[in-house]
Structures are given as structure tokens and as C-alpha cells.
């Protein structure tokens, strides 16, 4: 069985830690010595933690805002870039450049540019709640829009030319063509891109760590950051594991919904259906 090494490797380094996280959520452990069982204490704390509610709200808000921002821009740019004109090709090549930098590098770049004393905008952008929130959305978009533009560009290029020719004969203008042909034809591309965006935005950890450290106050402390803080600042690894387990449950639920919506699982039967 050739699949065995791969499955074992994945089980050991990804599935087992998840199981271990569930176990640790029922223990108290400060990183030294061995974890000690404490029953439901961490989960009770989780239920009553007002910071968790706030964090969940911020996480959802950040995910939705990022999704909307990135989808609109990527869709428009992608469809535009699908045209074969020379200037579009040149600009697309430039548009891709931000994606070449690592998330850390990008976060540092904006950390420097947003510094009130050294940067471009001499304002306390990160000190206000909306400023910090929008900065994270913008920085995430700046990094990932190039990638999603590419996906939409690929999608748009696969729309059969005849559809447009037919529409043009019917006298449909550019904007009607966009809404009645391009958008519906890009439905599958949009779901793929959205899945990647939503799963991806759960991981804006380094952006938050570098730009805002969850601040001002606790206003941008997304779930992964809250977990990091509980674990690696308060050394309450048991509670951190409870938050982590909660995060996995949410992510899994989200992905199940997305799988149902997008027919992800239908991959199995592509060939059989032919």
C-alpha cells in the first residue's frame, strides 16, 4: 500500500496533535513538567470568557470583510486581466508582485509605513479600532488579491467565446454581458476562491501579531491570536488548547458547509459520471 507512509505521516503530525489538543484542553499545563487533568475547568472558563465572544466576533467580521474586499477587487481585476491586450499583460505582471513577499515581510512593510513617526501616514492608524481593523483587512488584501485575481483570470479565460458573440448579436452591451454571462460562468471559480479566502483568513496570525498585537486593547485579537496569547504569554496551555479545539470545530463546521455548498466531495465521481 503506497498510501500508507503518507497517511501515517499526516496522522502523526496533523491528526494526532489535534487529538492531543482535545486531551490538553482537559488539563492544566504551564509548559514545564507534565500536564495535569482538571476536568472541564478550561471549558467552563471558555464559556464565560467575554474575550472569546469578542474574539469570535472580530474573527467573523474580519473574515467577512476580507472576503468581500478581496472578492470584489479580484473579480474585477481578474476579468479585466483576462483580456489579451499587451498593456493588461504588463499590468497583471506588476499586480502579482506583492504575492512574492512573505506574509511576515508584508506585515513588517506596513508596520513601518504605518508608524506614526517614521511612516508615510503620520497618523495613529493602528491606535484606533477601525484603523487597526481596516489595516489588517487591507494588508491581507494587498497580499492575497494578486493570487485570487489569477484564479479569476484563469476562470474568465475559460468562458467560451461563443457566449459573448451570441450576446453581442442580441445587442447586449458590455455591462449586460458582464452580469449575464461573465458572473454566472464564474460561479465555480468564485466558490473555489471563496473557500481559499475564508480558510486563509483564519490564519492572519502574523499580520495581527506584527501590526497590532491584538490591540488597541483587545479589539483585533482574532481567535488564533487569543490562543497564542493564552499559550505563549500566559503559559496557560490547557486553556490555549481549549481555544484551539474550539477553532478546529469552527473551521471544520465551516468546511463541511462549504463542501456541501460547492460539491467538493463530488470530485470522487468526476470520471464515473462520464
Amino acid at each position, binding site marked *: 500500500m503506497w498510501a500508507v507512509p503518507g497517511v501515517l505521516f499526516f496522522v502523526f503530525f496533523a491528526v494526532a496533535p489535534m487529538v492531543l489538543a482535545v486531551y490538553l484542553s482537559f488539563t492544566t499545563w504551564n509548559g*514545564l513538567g507534565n500536564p495535569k487533568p482538571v476536568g472541564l475547568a478550561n471549558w467552563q472558563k471558555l464559556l464565560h470568557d467575554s474575550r472569546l465572544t469578542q474574539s469570535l466576533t472580530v474573527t467573523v467580521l474580519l473574515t467577512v470583510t476580507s472576503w468581500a474586499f478581496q472578492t470584489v477587487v479580484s473579480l474585477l481585476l481578474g476579468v479585466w486581466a483576462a483580456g489579451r491586450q499587451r498593456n493588461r499583460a504588463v499590468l497583471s505582471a506588476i499586480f502579482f508582485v506583492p504575492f512574492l513577499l512573505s506574509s511576515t515581510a508584508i506585515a513588517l512593510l506596513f508596520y513601518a509605513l504605518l508608524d506614526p513617526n517614521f511612516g508615510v501616514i503620520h497618523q495613529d492608524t493602528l491606535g484606533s479600532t477601525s484603523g487597526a481593523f481596516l489595516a489588517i483587512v487591507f494588508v491581507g488584501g494587498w497580499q492575497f488579491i494578486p493570487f485570487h485575481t489569477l484564479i479569476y483570470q*484563469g476562470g474568465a479565460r475559460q468562458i467560451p467565446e461563443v457566449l459573448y458573440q451570441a450576446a453581442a448579436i442580441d445587442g447586449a452591451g458590455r455591462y449586460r454581458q458582464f452580469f449575464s454571462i461573465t458572473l454566472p460562468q464564474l460561479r465555480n471559480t468564485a466558490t473555489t476562491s471563496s473557500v481559499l479566502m475564508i480558510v486563509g483568513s483564519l490564519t492572519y496570525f502574523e499580520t495581527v501579531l506584527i501590526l497590532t498585537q491584538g490591540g488597541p*486593547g483587545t479589539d483585533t485579537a482574532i481567535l488564533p491570536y487569543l490562543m497564542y496569547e493564552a499559550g505563549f504569554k500566559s503559559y496557560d496551555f490547557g486553556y490555549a488548547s481549549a481555544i484551539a479545539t474550539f477553532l478546529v470545530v469552527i473551521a471544520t463546521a465551516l468546511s463541511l458547509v462549504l463542501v456541501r455548498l460547492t460539491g467538493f466531495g463530488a470530485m470522487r465521481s468526476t470520471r464515473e459520471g462520464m
Partner: protein
Amino acid sequence: MLFMDPNTSNGGRTFSRRWVLGAGATTLLTTGLTACGSSDSTGDSGTVTAFVYGDDAVKVQVKAVTRFNASAAAKKAKGKIKLEKVPGAEYPAKLRTAMGSPNAPDVFFNWGGGSIKAYQEANQLVDLTDTIKSDPVLSGGFLPSVLAAGALKGKNYGIPMRGMQPVILFYNKTVFAAHKLQPPTTWAGLLDINKKLKAAGITPFALGGADIWPELMWLEYLVDRIGGPSVFDKIKNGDASGWGDPAVLKAAETVKQLIDDGAFGKGFSSVSYVNGGAPAVFAKGKAAMHLMGSWEYSTQLGKFPDFAKSNLGWFAFPKYEGGAGDIRNVVGNPTNYWSVNARTGNKDAAIAFLRDCASEAYAKDLVANGDIPTTSNAEKLLDSSPNPEFAKFQYQLVQQAPAFTLSWDQAVDPDVSTPMLTEINKLFVGKSSPEQFVAALKGLK
């Protein structure tokens, strides 16, 4: 369809062969990495790894290591020290993860008190009480109060290794002179100065709010000046109801008033001390004063030497009218300590290295760096300090202080300290009112 390749293409056989070779090479590489990955762990006979907080002051420890490694003591103990400079902001987390792994340091920098309690409880610290008692170099070498401050329940786990670090109000002499101002001794006097500075378009205080602990210093002093040192003593001993003392609320209200009056400027919550933002704002005269630990002097000496030498002034935190706290009370860190990991492979070398901290050469290096050593014979060395005036001010400040309150974030457990800092930050950025602040702190256990 999701995740499908758009350009499925046919390829030649050469590809597969190259690929197999590549995969083989990677496997070899991986095996090789395992071998070197775990080579530098604890327990190697000779080397003693020492973790140190990697800031500007680390050069004193670098010199000490060089001196020790060449010394007869090192040869006798058959060990050499390898210094690991851990970048500042992440130091406590790095130390914790390393201490929980087989690659733990043998000797490590810490703040005493709450910062080492967990290690002591996990039996990871060498009890140095007897070592110190039986060794005149160590027992007589340090100020007893400082040595005691690094102890837990009467047992010593740390040797002082940096200068004393009281928190002091620094001021920019150029700015004060330009606006004909004198260092104040009362709170009302301070507010008066603030008014004049703001009228001149200068921010009264630099504040590295992004790090949060510089904000903490304001509360530490205000609570002391308003309610006296006993208020925090109660909290430190685990009584969260101590946060309900009226002095805490009054201090929080005073802070809010300062912020509302623009005493820290507008952008303070994204200015950092650790990255040098706040010191730069202060040195360049954009802000007139800076409440900071005494290390501010070494920091400025490293970053803006001209400013540090001629234009940096200092004074004690003013008295609060009607408050219970003495103007001579000090808050801050007595010093930093080296502690020894109980699992070290070469305890003799580690302790021999620690003895160097009591040496005159070490104390001289500290003095040269602008620090005040906590060694018992330090006073006579202060004349050779780059700034004897500052050195003596500091020494006397600490010597005469009726109370020295340890920084709150170091005095309490890390699991209280983190939420406490979060609440302080919320107060400073206006996310919670003084009343909400007090209520939240009372809920911390």
C-alpha cells in the same frame, strides 16, 4: 472543478528520473538534519548555554563570557559559556518553550519574583542558598536587599547580573531650557509644566504604548504616591480585592485625565519602546519627558550618545498632594538575575561563571555602560561612570528609598500579568473607563 490542473501535459521520462534523484537527495538531507538538529542540547560535557535578554546592555555579558572562557576558573571547571542573545520582546516565551524542551539553557537571565516561580515549582532551578552562604565572594559581594529580592520563600535562586533599575522621570534639558521650565516636585507643578509644553506644541511625555509595560509604570507610581506601597503589597500577595483600593481608581482617573489632556500625544499607542520609537521621540525633542527605567540612559547612550551625555536630565516622580506615598519611594526592578537550570550538565562551570558577576571587572563594565552595579563595593566605582552625576542620583535614590516596589508585571504570576497588562492597555486607549478598569482587575485571580 476545484483544485484541478489547467494544463495537464504529457512529459518525458527524464522528468521522472530527475525527480527520483531529487527525492533521494532530500531524504539524505533530512537524515542529515536530524543529526545536526539535536547536537547542541544541554548535557554536552563542556559547554554551558546562557540565555540573555538581547538588548543594548548585553555587551557587559558578552565581555564577561569572553573573560570567563579565557580564565583559569573555566579551565578548572572544564567548561565554556555560550551566550545566546534572545531578541527582547519574545524573551519570556522563548525561555518557557526552551525550558520545556531538552534544549533548555543551563543558565538564564530573569527578573526574579513571579518570573521564576513556575520554574522553581517545577524543580527546574538550582537552589543557590548554600552555595552563596559558603562562598564569601557571593555572600559578601552584593547588596543584601537586592540579593533577597531575587529569592523565593527565603531561598536564593538568582545572582544579580545587571544594574539596578529604578523607574525615573527623565527630561530633555534642551526643551526645558527653551521654555524656562524646572523639574517639578509636586503633581500640580507637573500639570502646570504640561500646560506650558502643550501651548508650545510639544508633547509633554514620550510613551511607548505599543509595549504596554511603559504604561504600567505610570500606574505603579501613581498608586504608590496616592495610596502608598501597601496597596500593591496586598495585591502581590494574591488578594485580588486589593485592586478595589480607592487609590487604584484615583490613579486610573489621573491617567485618564492625562490622556484626555493630550499629555502623551495622540499616537502613543502605536509607538514602541522596544524598537526605539519612544526614546527617539524623546531625544529629538518631540516630547519633553519620559517615565522609564534607569536603562533609558544606556539606551540613549547607544542610540543618541550626544543627547545622553549632555541633554538628558532626571528627577524623582513628584509627590501627589494629599497622597499617602513618600516621594522617596521607588518602583522598578531591583536588577536582573542569572539562575541555573537544575538539569545542567556542568553545574560547576555555571556557578564559576556566576561568581564573575561579583567581580570588580564586571562591576566596572556595568558602570562603563551607565549602569549602577548592585555589588556592595559599587559606590567607589561610580566616579568613573560616564555620567557620575546620574549614577550617584540613582544609587542614592535606591539607597534612601523607604520602599522599592517590584514592577507589577514581574511581581505577579504570568497568568495574572498578561490580562493585567491587557486591562491597562484598554484603559490607556480609552476602551475602558477607570471604573471598568478597576472592576476588571478585581476579577483577575
